[in-house]
């Protein structure tokens, strides 16, 4: 490990040596994990426009985030990731808001994935809702244990899960292109639908499908050489995700059959003419591909859950270590070196949420995530201006003014999405947003926060002075 890497070691957390392949799989899981959900975009926005959005949207939505996350992740490779970037750029208040909104969003989000996985299982084996809850708790407990056990184990589990997810998709692409009769790009739009309406319908889902490049940054304190590993993994994952979405969606449209794209929905368990990826697999690949895609759908959601449990629990830990959250959340496991309390609490919340229908909570999800993205983009520009000479092992190859213009695109899309998703999303999301200022007022009053020069895992203050933490680690070394 480099000297900088040693200095960045957080007390209590164990750094694992992660191969670039594993890191790419982690990023791929957090962003993509298969193409399930894209079916709804096809039927609402039309095949041609869907493929166009899959190819073009990343360049104004996810690529800016991937680039910014890579630059900031390489410059500030600290635990909590995005939360620490915003702190450096915009101060403690906005970093707390970003961490709070992002974490709250992931608490709900992760429970959704378990619910979706259970939905798939229940659609085949019609067990009672009580048994569904028991299975749900079992799955949550399993992945919570894996996460507490260590990031290296979680990484290996994600590799296995993504193999189960992607092998059937590769088969679907091969068989779909060979046997499918549908036209993957025609019609361009659904008959009678304007481009504006088609964009509105598909944009929210597509933004969701391309979100998550910032997520792995929260694990920076637990991998060796994060300033090099995470940016590389993100840059490798970006084209893989675009190609995965494009090819698998085209294959599914072709497999659905001529003109049958109108019946594409993300859940075709009700039968009839409805087509999802699982049904598309059955049409062109028979029972074998049906079951393979079925396993892929379950594994996809479980992979997302495992990944977001890992990534979503870390900001709580770091906020606690920075004295902006209850202190018990900042405990690391003595043997396994993981933030076990933060992971366990997230698992407990998920176990409760799995029991009920939480449609109301889901509406705050997208809104909170969009709100947390805006400070990240602003912080990137502020840091370019305020700290132009900060070492950036990965630097977005753009001058600051061009980067500022470039990040305006995702900010504009996020603001547009906030108001175009419907009034229930807007109002429900705002309730979640208001919870951030309230939480800060309470936690700051109780725990006081930590000065920049005493932050764990941070070696240099924004003024360029060595931190107390750096001095302590150096003394221990």
């Amino acid at each position, binding site marked *: 490990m480099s000297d900088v890497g040693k200095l960045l070691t957080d*007390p209590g957390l164990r750094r694992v040596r992660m191969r670039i392949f594993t890191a790419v799989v982690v990023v791929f899981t957090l962003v993509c994990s298969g193409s399930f959900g894209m079916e709804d975009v096809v039927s609402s926005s039309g095949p041609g426009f869907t493929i166009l959005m899959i190819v073009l949207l990343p360049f104004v939505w996810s690529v800016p985030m991937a680039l910014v996350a890579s630059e900031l992740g390489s410059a500030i490779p600290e635990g909590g990731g995005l939360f620490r970037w915003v702190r450096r750029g915009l*101060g*403690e*208040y906005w970093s707390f808001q970003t961490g709070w909104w992002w974490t709250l969003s992931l608490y709900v989000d992760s429970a959704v994935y378990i619910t979706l996985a259970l939905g798939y299982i229940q659609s085949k084996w019609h067990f009672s809702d009580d048994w569904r809850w028991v299975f749900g708790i079992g799955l949550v407990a399993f992945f919570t244990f894996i996460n507490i056990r260590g990031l290296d184990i979680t990484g290996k589990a994600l590799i296995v899960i993504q193999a189960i997810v992607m092998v059937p998709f590769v088969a679907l692409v091969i068989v779909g292109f060979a046997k499918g009769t549908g036209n993957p790009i025609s019609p361009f739009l659904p008959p009678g639908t304007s481009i504006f309406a088609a964009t509105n319908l598909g944009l929210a889902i597509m933004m969701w499908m391309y979100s998550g490049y910032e997520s792995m940054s929260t694990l920076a304190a637990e991998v060796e050489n994060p300033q090099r590993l995470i940016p590389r993994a993100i840059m490798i994952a970006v084209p893989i995700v675009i190609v995965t979405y494009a090819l698998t969606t085209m294959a599914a449209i072709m497999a659905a059959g001529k003109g049958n794209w109108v019946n594409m929905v993300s859940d075709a368990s009700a039968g009839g003419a409805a087509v999802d990826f699982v049904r598309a697999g059955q049409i062109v690949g028979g029972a074998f591909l049906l079951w393979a895609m079925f396993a892929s759908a379950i594994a996809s959601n479980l992979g997302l859950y495992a990944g977001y449990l890992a990534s979503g629990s870390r900001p709580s830990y770091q906020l606690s*270590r920075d*004295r902006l959250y209850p*202190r018990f959340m*900042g405990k690391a496991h003595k043997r396994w070196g993981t933030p076990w309390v933060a992971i366990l609490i997230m698992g407990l919340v998920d176990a409760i949420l799995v029991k009920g229908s939480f449609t109301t909570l889901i509406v705050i999800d997208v809104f909170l995530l969009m709100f947390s993205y805006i400070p990240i983009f602003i912080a990137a520009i502020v840091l370019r201006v305020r700290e132009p000479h900060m070492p950036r092992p990965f630097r977005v190859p753009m001058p600051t003014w061009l980067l500022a213009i470039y990040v305006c695109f995702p900010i504009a899309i996020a603001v547009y999405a906030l108001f175009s998703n419907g*009034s*229930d999303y*807007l*109002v*429900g999301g*705002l*309730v979640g*947003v*208001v*919870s951030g*200022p*309230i939480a*800060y*007022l*309470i936690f*700051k*009053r109780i725990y*006081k*926060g*930590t*000065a*920049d*020069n*005493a*932050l*764990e895992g941070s070696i240099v203050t924004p003024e360029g*002075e060595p931190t*107390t933490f750096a001095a302590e680690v150096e003394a221990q070394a």
Partner: protein
Amino acid sequence: MNARSWRNLGAVLGVAAGVVAIGLGLYIHSRHPWAAGGVWRIAGVAVSVQRLLAAMGLLMIVGGLVVLRSRTAGGILVAAAVVIALCLIYTHANVRMTLVRVWAAPVVLGLLSSMCAGLALEAEIVPVGAEALPKSPGSPTSPVADEAPPA
């Protein structure tokens, strides 16, 4: 901006949010005395939109004034009024957009007020570990940390 500026701005915005809410309540009452958006039942009590606007407006004014004394209590009071208003809007699916337009100004002003209170608190409270910071003109002269950094 320093703590005092944020505090004053938070107070002004909180009071402004309350005044706008009460004004809107009176205006709507003069135009539609039977209430826009029907009634909202909390614990069996029927609350009209106009009355809720007035009540939350009053709460925001009180919260805004309290911000001058206590950033935490004042900020939470204003934010609580905003949350209650948003809950009212959310539960009225059939007239939600109408209510969004009615409540937009008080909600935005109230949210900004609570944010200003938070920013004032950030500037006021001396964080743990700040004693090691080099003193600069205008910074607190003898910050006191209340606890040691975590082991």
